[in-house]
């Protein structure tokens, strides 16, 4: 971790100095970066319980997968009972994520285009040519944001060691930089400090992190899929943050004895010998990863009839949902879901499966409401579908 950060610092400080020097130095540094990355990734795989061995909790698993297929869905909030595998599932995600290309060793995980745009602009003079930029494949990053994080580590700040020893103001990127183009996970998100929530809301809205502190001024891309989990009994989420999440998955205690026995057995087997267990499930894990990649590739070809869009709009209207984020999320999620199912056309059948996920947290809350949000959505959906059928 420290080494990664140090390597990153090198890259950044190099950037601040002359272009030539940076270029000359680059190969050596990049090597250092890749060397550090690899063992870190391996270590992770030995630690996380595999995604494919998680029993039940389909709603959460589907939400996460749909967000990999299309990150524009806007993340997922997983709320529910304690001890039901929320964080286990999110942490297992890293292993089934596909690879993305980035500029080699780039701490912001930028694409070549982003890199050229930012760096050329900053230096003015010589434009960087795409063929000069080396790239590498990395797994989609999953960054864990702990509750105790301070703002400077989230946004990035001046590198204190460098500042103290040489008086140079170098930028040390934070967690937002690391999570660019990846996942940012916050466990117990409802307990997150208000100040950090403000930062996240800002960055999530703009896709950019702007740091103006301690005499440095930096702006870098920070587009991430926000994943939060928590137990509603520990506290409520701020409405603005709630609204940011594309999907809202619920998770409850499994009360099926056979399933629970299975959970216990898998867990014990894993605890006994994690490596052997991982080996056993490699095929399944790879299969899932392939299916996700296939869905990603299919996604651009998926189409949706205007009639379906009309039905979605009517559904949101009937449910009294403010703004257009509801419609937009359903549309995107339905596309991703169709791709996941291997279908090229979105139908109301797809919409029906994902409407609850998209709308549950957008319904206006009535303190005296006793009907479950999911049921309400289902009911309205039934009406819309009935109307549609009657019209046809």
């Amino acid at each position, binding site marked *: *971790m*420290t080494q990664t*950060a140090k390597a990153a610092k090198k890259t950044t400080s190099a950037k601040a100095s002359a272009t030539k020097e940076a270029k000359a130095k680059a190969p050596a540094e990049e090597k250092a970066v890749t060397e550090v990355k690899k063992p870190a990734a391996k270590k992770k795989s030995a630690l996380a319980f595999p995604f494919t061995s998680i029993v039940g909790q389909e709603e959460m698993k589907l939400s996460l997968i749909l967000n990999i297929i299309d990150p524009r869905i806007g993340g997922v909030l997983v709320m529910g*009972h*304690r*001890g*039901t*595998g929320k964080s286990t599932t999110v942490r297992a995600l890293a292993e089934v994520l596909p690879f993305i290309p980035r500029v080699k060793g780039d701490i912001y995980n930028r694409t070549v285009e982003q890199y050229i745009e930012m760096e050329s602009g900053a230096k003015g003079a010589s434009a960087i040519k795409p063929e000069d930029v080396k790239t590498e494949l990395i797994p989609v990053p999953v960054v*864990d*944001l*702990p*509750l*105790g*994080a*301070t*703002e*400077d*580590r989230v946004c990035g*700040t*001046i590198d*204190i*060691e460098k*500042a*103290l*020893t040489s*008086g*140079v*103001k170098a930028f040390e990127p*934070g*967690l937002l930089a690391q999570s660019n183009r990846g996942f940012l996970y916050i*466990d*117990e998100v409802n*307990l997150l*400090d*208000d*100040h*950090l929530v403000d930062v996240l809301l800002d960055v999530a809205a703009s896709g950019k992190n702007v740091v103006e502190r*301690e*005499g440095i001024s930096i702006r870098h891309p920070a587009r991430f899929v926000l994943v939060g989990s928590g137990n*509603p*009994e*520990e*506290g*409520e*989420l*701020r*409405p603005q943050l709630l609204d940011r999440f594309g999907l809202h998955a619920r998770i409850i*205690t499994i009360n099926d*004895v*056979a399933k*629970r*026995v299975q*959970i*216990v*057995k898998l*867990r*014990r087997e894993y605890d006994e010998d994690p490596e052997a267990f991982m080996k056993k499930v490699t095929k399944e894990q790879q299969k899932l990863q392939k299916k996700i990649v296939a869905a990603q590739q299919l996604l651009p070809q998926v189409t949706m009839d205007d009639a379906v869009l009309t039905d979605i709009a009517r559904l949101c209207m009937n449910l009294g949902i403010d703004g257009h984020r509801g419609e937009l999320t359903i549309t995107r999620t339905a596309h991703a879901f169709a791709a996941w199912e291997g279908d090229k056309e979105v139908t109301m059948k797809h919409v029906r499966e994902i409407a609850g996920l998209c709308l549950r947290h957008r319904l206006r*809350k009535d*303190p*005296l409401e006793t009907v479950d949000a999911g049921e309400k959505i289902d009911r309205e959906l039934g009406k819309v579908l009935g109307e549609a059928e009657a019209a046809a």
Partner: protein
Amino acid sequence: MIAFTDIVGMDLAKQALMLLAVDPSLGGVVIPSTVGSGKSTLARAFADILPDGTPFVELPLNVTEDRLIGGVDLEATLASGVRVVQHGVLSKAHKGVLYVDSLSLLDSSAVSHIMDAMSRGVVLVEREGLSEVHPADFMLVGTYDPSDGEVRMGLLDRIGIIVPFTPVNDYRARKQIVNIVMGKRDEEDTQDELRMLRGLIDAAREQLHKVSMTNEQIKGLIQTAISLGVEGNRVDIFAIRAAIANAALSQRTEVDDEDLKLAMKLVLVPRATRMPEREPSPEEMAQEEPPPQEEEQPEQEGEDENAPPDETDSEADEEQKDTPDMIEELMMDAVETELPDNILNISLASKKKAKSGSRGEALNNKRGRFVRSQPGEIKSGKVALIPTLISAAPWQASRKAEQARKGIKTTAALIIGKEDVKIKRFRDKSGTLFIFMVDASGSMALNRMRQAKGAVSSLLQNAYVHRDQVSLISFRGKHAQVLLPPSQSVDRAKRELDVLPTGGGTPLASALLTGWETAKQARTKGITQIMFVMITDGRGNIPLGAAYDPTVTKAPKEDLEKEIEALALSIQADGIASIVVDTQMNYLSRGEAPKLAQKLGGRYFYLPNAKAEQIVEAALS
């Protein structure tokens, strides 16, 4: 120091700690007990039965976030010029024990960090320019007095064993405790006993992976968890581990009924959210008589130990008749002995008169969550050293040059100016705790409950930014009851209000006392602003004594008034704001509610058929 083996009584707690010593993956042991039971002595003596060199770290209640998680060691950093990292308390307990006395008084951000570390086995340090991972795989041992408040459920979920709460009232045992404290035991005896116990635990640890458990037994534990309404699936694993550890401790290779029962007692029953219902079997429904099998119960134990190993294969036929019955029997046994004290009367403890502040009630302003630093003067707060250094660092060369130019000789490594000083800004904890006290007596109770429910929900939904909390107390019959300890959860508040019984007398004095105690507890956790929202007609008719003495049912009117007045004045003097909302029809009112408001120094609102919003408005105005 009193040795583990010298401690008298608390056998279940001792057993729990021994199980933890055998299998640290049980996560920890929580021991709720009253003051003076020797619980903290026992917890500290836990180190005696652990292998030599196992870390045992005691967490001070007022621990700062820096100390807990770790951060930059300033002194060493300044001395060496290189950033030196200091591990936090959580990481210092790695592979050992983290002990917290008065666990329920620990502030909520510290609890969150402990939970986080326990779920990861490491501490992620992302603070003040540091980004590190420190190992923090520890056992948590916590003791607390339930009258100080309850431990957060999220934390309990990560701790395998919760010792059932039993107040110590055995005078003989107490006397023996005194004897030990006076040093009347033979030191050599103690050492021998300890050696033996440690040998036993070592042997059990070796044995642990050899213990087998049948599918039926696993199913039995899971079934029990489901019937007790235990939340989450994590507990299943803890229950299984506890049963196995107990078998290993008895040098057995197979789990038996005693192990299962103990696992239920220590892991499942304390987390019960409902009393298990005996589901009548079809025969029972038909005959209304228990099947004759029950008679054979004593023999069954023996039979089961010799159960053929092929049981493991019979996963398919779930409905094996004998086993579920037996499991149910075990469960009822575990429940009946432990449940009444522990679950159903969980709020009983908080009803007892609160001890006057042995623990500091003063709020430490320098606590809370350090969020960021901002420019400021040294005197105006706690100096944030790292940011101060950062801002001073780039100017060192030029400042030294400047001083040299002026001919000032300096040996200081760093020159820090006023403009560099940054002070820490802590998280604002200034939210208000609204304690709703709802009169659930009499015929209008349902109406009041509905109003309270609406008010609570809308208050919570509109008040995130203020970090407000609500607590809910209902009063009817003989005494008041805390339905919801201070919380921000709409879901919980709603759930509590849904199942509330109504009718009976009006124990107004008890409500005031309960509210006051809740307020005091909240103050120890850093909430300063407290407001009572009383929804009542103000007509109390049950004396305070009724809560403790069942023979007391009424008292003369003057006595009732005196009680209420005394309490109200104390509450007012304690700086607690109040409003009284009277929703009774005018012609029934005899003016008691305005009087109550006056005594409390609060405001009175007359809102017949009040809407939830109106109550909220009144509370916020």
